[in-house]
């Protein structure tokens, strides 16, 4: 007679356990900066399991907060393209959708292309990026990190080298060092 409530208890515990296991898990963090990571079949890993249809993809760009203190991730769903990394930079250049954010890219800058080789993305812009760019140090740091972080959202990209008309540039507006490929920076991203 004693065993019946025990069975009931066990059953209840099992149900609870299984329910607990079904709870949504936290979005998986990606480990950046690692070589030899198997390239994902899809070009974009979305961090939320939202229903993204086969003809669209989710892109995350990094735009500046109005107070110039940090970058904010802005997600948008757009039509799938053949060059998702280039599309991501075009969305970055186009500026934020939210009125609470501001663009750090000089207006009119064109994305010429993104080549990815051995984990390094070579992000090529036209001369508008550097010519008559009078950005202060703060804006320049946000701009470089916005480009790097937008591209390192893609699992196959670990580092980013900025080019202008296909050539390496050592700085954008005279403060930041852009002479080498650099990796993602988490510290400038606003954490919720």
């Amino acid at each position, binding site marked *: 007679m004693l*065993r019946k409530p*025990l*069975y009931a208890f*066990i059953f209840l*515990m*099992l149900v609870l*356990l*299984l329910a*607990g*296991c*079904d*709870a949504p*898990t*936290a979005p*998986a*963090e990606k*480990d*950046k*900066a*690692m*070589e*030899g990571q198997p390239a994902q079949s899809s070009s974009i890993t979305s961090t939320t399991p939202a229903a993204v249809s086969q003809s669209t993809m989710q892109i995350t760009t990094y735009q*500046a907060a*109005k*107070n*110039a*203190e940090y970058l904010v991730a802005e997600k948008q769903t757009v039509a799938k393209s053949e060059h998702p990394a280039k599309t991501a930079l075009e969305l970055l250049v186009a500026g934020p959708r939210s009125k609470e954010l*501001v*663009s*750090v890219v000089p207006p009119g800058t064109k994305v010429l292309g993104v080549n990815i080789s051995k984990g390094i993305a070579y992000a090529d812009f036209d001369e508008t990026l550097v010519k008559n760019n*009078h*950005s*202060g*140090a*703060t*804006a320049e*740091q946000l701009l*470089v*990190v916005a480009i*790097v*972080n937008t591209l390192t959202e893609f699992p196959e990209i*670990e*580092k*980013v080298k900025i080019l202008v008309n296909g050539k390496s*540039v*050592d*700085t954008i507006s*005279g*403060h*930041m*060092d852009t*002479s*080498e490929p*650099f*990796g*993602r*920076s988490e*510290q*400038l991203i606003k954490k919720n």
Partner: protein
Amino acid sequence: MPMKKFWFVLVILVSLLSQQVWAAPLDSSLLAPTPSVQISSIRYAVHTDSATGGKSLRVVLDVNGPVKVTASSNMLQDPQLVITIQGASVGSVANSVVFDGSIAKDLTILQTGKTESQITVNLPQIIDDSDYQVSVLPGDTAANKPFRVVIDIDKPLPLPEFTFTPGLRGKRIAIDPGHGGSDVGAIGPNGIQEKVVTLGVAMKVKALLEQAGAKVYMTRTDDRDVFAPNDTASEELGARSEVGNKNQVDIFVDIHANSFANPQVGGTGTYYFKKSMYDKLLAKTIQNGVCGVYGLADRGIYPANFYVLKHTNMPAILIEMAFLSNPNEEKLLAAPAFQQQMAQGIVSGIDNFFTQAAKLGVSN
């Protein structure tokens, strides 16, 4: 009543319960107990942060099940970082890895229990507890992605190679008025140019430092490009760093005015590149020195991957005095009285740096 069945269910329940407790802190959805959790692979890479230029070594161990990790630094004899992985045995993974020695010398993996492994990382020098992070990233069974133990170790700052004495007398100081000549820098809404205000403040800093007995090396004393008009960025910025390097100055101070898309943004901020333990100190003392001049907002100090700061051999900072893009601050930056106060703040910050740095040298 079949007793066997009861015990069977109880055993399953207990194993599930322990699994749940085990996995809970890892936020895992793993349900079935893994018969033997092993470290299946080890890899590493050096990461350079795009914002700060700081380097760190990241070691990743793949584990085919949930584990718990603890880490501690052992600085008593040879500096070491010891990471204990509870819940995994050493699989067929290599039991040692040799690094280039700049951030870590080598790493060994040892099985210290039936389901416990220990990783010992030998370090070239003592590190702070804030210089490393050890974490477990949850696996994804659906995507067949393993659990990962991630060890991040920041590149250590070189031990003090400078000895400083208090006071400004006899000190060799490089002052760099930002931009100049063909490079005007930022332009305010009323047309005030950055290259003009940086030179104005820098010349006042020079006068004050010389009065106090310091030897000042200017990258420019009039409106010109330091290397040549329309030179490349690396030629121009390299020429500025070189003024500090070839004159073997004690410190390098780069003076700038900020600019941002939103005209309401304002305040003072100071940037440094983490190349010695003195760079951050210099940023702190100068930021404190100018803080509150004309009620400007304190934006704080930031590590930054700035070309001139990186290419100078001595402690160096870049101060962004105020925002030219902010109409009020543009007016201030152009005013000689404001420039004088700013210069006094910078000089008192430099003086305080030598006081603090002298103490630092003694305690080390």
